């Protein structure tokens, strides 16, 4: 889950220093489908095997071989299309013609003017919506290893090709240029990844290349209607590099424009180590892929029954789950705790705990701060509800509740029993006040200072002394005092003039 750990929590828009500019990004995400076999042949679709072991005449492009479409790949492609709110169409395959040694036929079977899915959208955790232009099926290429030049393509002596990946089924998801910040791009990819995992169409591992992202980036001055010239940034191996690359590319383009130069439409490659994009073109030739309908394959017409079947089996997707969690908790779906709950698969627990009488706000707090990292295991929603009820009643402080929750996770025991065993007891206001008075009496000089400082309005020093007294009181109470109640008592005593 490393890929999705951070972005929600830091989501904010814009790039520092480029206030007068608008970033325009469209993303092309390739995901390998989690089928048993390749797109057009019965070879295993499996990452990490010995080179050239999952090969046959078809995926090697041997003369005379012919492709046959994997039904499961079509099923997954339709699932992806429907999960992205696309219309699923009758579609045909086309050949995209260009020479490259990792492509056994020197054309790629893809979909061109009749993709299986088009015109959808994706609702993101930050409340924004990104249009989906299309999601089409195609086949993956083999993998080149470059010898010499530190494994880089430039300056390599020769290259070695493994065709295990050639013919692995892909769906390419093309977004509208609706993305306006590096953060939004990251959120988009994270959301897409969550969806792909939820519908079990892809394992979506950027680090293994089963999910690959290209970014079309352009800049325009705020208020302009027309898009600027875009560059396509490739070789983005993580969500982190996606954000970095977009920001770099944005600055590069603004620098060029402001120094009076023209942006040239081109493919650029992200260099993670150097933290910059580089010009990827070295070919003199203009691209001319000579697309035409693949004559070895027949059209795909899924029909309404198939689409209905996919819709009926569709699991609840993150946007809907955030809505549900937010509705039950009575908060906005963009609330961090809600986003985290869904992202960490804790929303079902949260909803059940609230349904069982849990305090919504405290349930969300536990999910966001105490359960997000390690997960909830087999935690009972009823126990979570009971825990928050104890907090509401003042039977447990926040600190105690956290301790009890940790114990609940490992033992599965009800919170009341744990609290009792730990000797966590209700401390009534009278006892607490007596304790506060005892501490003040024990530190007369500090208290005098405190009163003077507060009177002088020196917030910084006042804060420091608040911490001092709170700490002493908590120490005396052995953690059973409620922090809020202590603060309230201290404030009351200061107001009373000491």
């Amino acid at each position, binding site marked *: 889950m490393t890929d999705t750990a951070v972005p929600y929590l830091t989501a904010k828009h814009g790039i520092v220093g480029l206030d007068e500019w608008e970033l325009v990004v469209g993303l092309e995400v390739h995901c390998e489908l989690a089928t048993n076999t390749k797109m057009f042949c019965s070879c295993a679709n499996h990452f990490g095997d010995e080179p050239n072991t999952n090969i046959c005449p078809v995926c090697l492009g*041997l*003369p005379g071989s012919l492709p*046959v*479409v994997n039904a499961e790949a079509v099923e997954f492609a339709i699932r992806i299309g429907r999960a992205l709110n696309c219309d699923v169409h009758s579609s045909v395959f086309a050949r995209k*013609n260009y*020479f490259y040694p990792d492509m*056994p036929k020197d*054309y790629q079977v893809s979909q061109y003017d009749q993709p299986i899915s088009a015109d959808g959208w994706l609702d993101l955790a930050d409340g924004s919506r990104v249009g989906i232009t299309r999601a089409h099926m195609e086949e993956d290429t083999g993998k080149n290893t470059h010898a010499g030049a530190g494994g880089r393509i430039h300056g390599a002596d020769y290259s070695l090709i493994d065709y295990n990946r050639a013919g692995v089924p892909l769906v390419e998801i093309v977004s509208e240029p609706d993305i306006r910040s590096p953060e939004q791009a990251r959120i988009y990819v994270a959301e897409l990844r969550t969806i792909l995992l939820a519908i079990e169409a892809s394992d979506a591992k950027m680090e293994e290349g089963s999910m690959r992202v290209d970014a079309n980036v352009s800049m325009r001055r705020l208020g302009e209607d027309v898009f600027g010239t875009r560059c396509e940034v490739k070789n983005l191996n993580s969500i982190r590099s996606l954000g970095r690359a977009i920001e770099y590319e944005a600055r590069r383009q603004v620098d060029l424009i402001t120094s009076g130069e023209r942006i040239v439409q081109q493919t650029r490659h992200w260099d993670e180590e150097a933290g910059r994009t580089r010009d990827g073109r070295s070919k003199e030739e203009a691209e001319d892929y*000579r697309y035409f309908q693949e*004559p070895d394959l027949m059209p795909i017409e899924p029909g309404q029954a198939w689409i209905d079947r996919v819709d009926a089996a569709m699991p609840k997707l993150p946007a809907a789950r955030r809505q549900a969690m937010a509705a039950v908790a009575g908060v906005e779906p963009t609330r961090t705790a809600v986003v985290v709950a869904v992202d960490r698969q804790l929303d079902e627990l949260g909803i059940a705990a609230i349904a069982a009488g849990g305090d919504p706000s405290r349930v969300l707090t536990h999910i966001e701060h105490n359960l997000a990292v390690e997960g909830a295991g087999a935690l009972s929603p009823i126990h979570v509800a009971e825990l928050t009820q104890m907090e509401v009643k003042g039977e447990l402080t926040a600190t105690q509740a956290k301790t009890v929750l940790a114990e609940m996770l490992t033992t599965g025991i009800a919170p009341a029993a744990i609290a009792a065993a730990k000797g966590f007891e209700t401390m009534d206001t009278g006892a607490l006040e007596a304790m506060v008075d005892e501490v003040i009496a024990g530190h007369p000089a500090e208290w005098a200072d405190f009163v003077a400082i507060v009177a002088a309005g020196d917030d910084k020093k006042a804060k420091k002394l608040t911490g001092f007294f709170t700490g002493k009181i908590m120490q005396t109470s052995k953690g059973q005092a409620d922090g809020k109640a202590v603060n309230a008592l201290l404030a009351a005593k200061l107001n009373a003039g000491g």
Partner: protein
Amino acid sequence: MSAIELARSIRAGERSAREVVDGYLATIAEREPSIHAFNVVTAEQARVAADAVDARVAAGDDPGPLAGVPIALKDNLCTQGIPTTCSSKILEGWRPPYDATVVTKLAAAGAVSVGKTNLDEFAMGSSTENSAFGPTRNPHDLERVPGGSSGGSAAAVAAGFAPLSLGSDTGGSIRQPASLCGVVGVKPTYGLVSRYGLVAFASSLDQIGPFATNVADAALLLEVIAGHDPLDSTSIPGPVPSYSQVLSDGVDGLRVGIITELMGEGIAPDVRRRVEEAAEHLAQNGATVGEASVPAAMFGLSAYYLIAPAEASSNLARYDGVRYGLRVDGATTAEMMENTRTEGFGIEVKRRIMLGTYALSAGYYEAFYGKAQKVRTLIVRDFAAAYEKFDVLLSPTAPTTAFRFGEKAEDPLSMYLSDVCTIPTNLAGQPAMSVPFGVGDDGMPVGVQVLAPALGEVPMFRAAAVLEAGAPS
């Protein structure tokens, strides 16, 4: 002796497959040097296969309907472990790791492959002059071409090297050489025979089909190789009817139309006369003969010479020196690929690759490829209209009898015109066959083409059987 009779006698134990194969191999040894029908003769494998057939007969098993029958395979059909070259330098030495579906089916039917036959490089041509390994000669006149592109397969049957052979037909490559060599050649309905293992020329047009000395053998061979193949997405599902059983049905009541557009200018008068005689013969046997019009057929040549090269330009991209076949090295992969393709392909192949690349390239697609696809629609429609009035159609197979070597080699367009009568069928995906029907003024064989709607092989074979019986000697 017919293939049918050979198989019958071998299955009955009246003669051994081994003695049959040895007999044909002897004929090959004698005449092959002057004809060059084969790129490779697989004598050893043939003897082993024949012995296996004999062993099965001895064991009381039935080796199948083509038990012990020698067959020659066009060298664009993949044969496991046996070189498959497409008569191109670029594939020289390549040994496929798999068999074409038709090759598997033939083996299962007991047939014995005797070798791989010569063709125009990648099946692009009408004379077999475009082979990288030298031309095949017409057994009826060694100074003349056998036609093409399946010239080797046609010549092999005509020369008695095998009673049967397989070819492939993209624009007439079975029917035209059958006509020029005086044998029967069948181009089946597109999708009737699996293309798996046929090295592609133009995927939406290519179809494998039989050559034989007679109609009944061709019908039997087609029955053996036809049928649905899950490895070919363009294979028609469903059972295959028996063609052999309809051969004696006659043509009484069959409606036969002569395609008027293919009987005019450009067709040699002696060829035209034979088609007219053929029609008369069918009429005498009870067929209703009339004039049929397929107006768009006249534009078939133009559409074909855009569509086929376009598909070919893509199909032939894979010959890049990376995975198999020829490599001519270079400093970079791009250079290596260019060196390999420049040296590995012959002139006609390059010409068609460039033509097809142009037809598909940005700015020209609509004007050429797009327009050709629309013409293809018109041809389909015109045939459909004609087949409302007729069960089968009749035309010459080729505009002339076999021409002499070099006669058309320098003028691609005149060579392309050899296919004018056969091309429309491929564009429509329909079956057609060439039946020998006498000779021309030069004494060379003339073929009459019988055309039928998609999956109309049954009426096609009925007409062919009657034509064969009435062919002038």
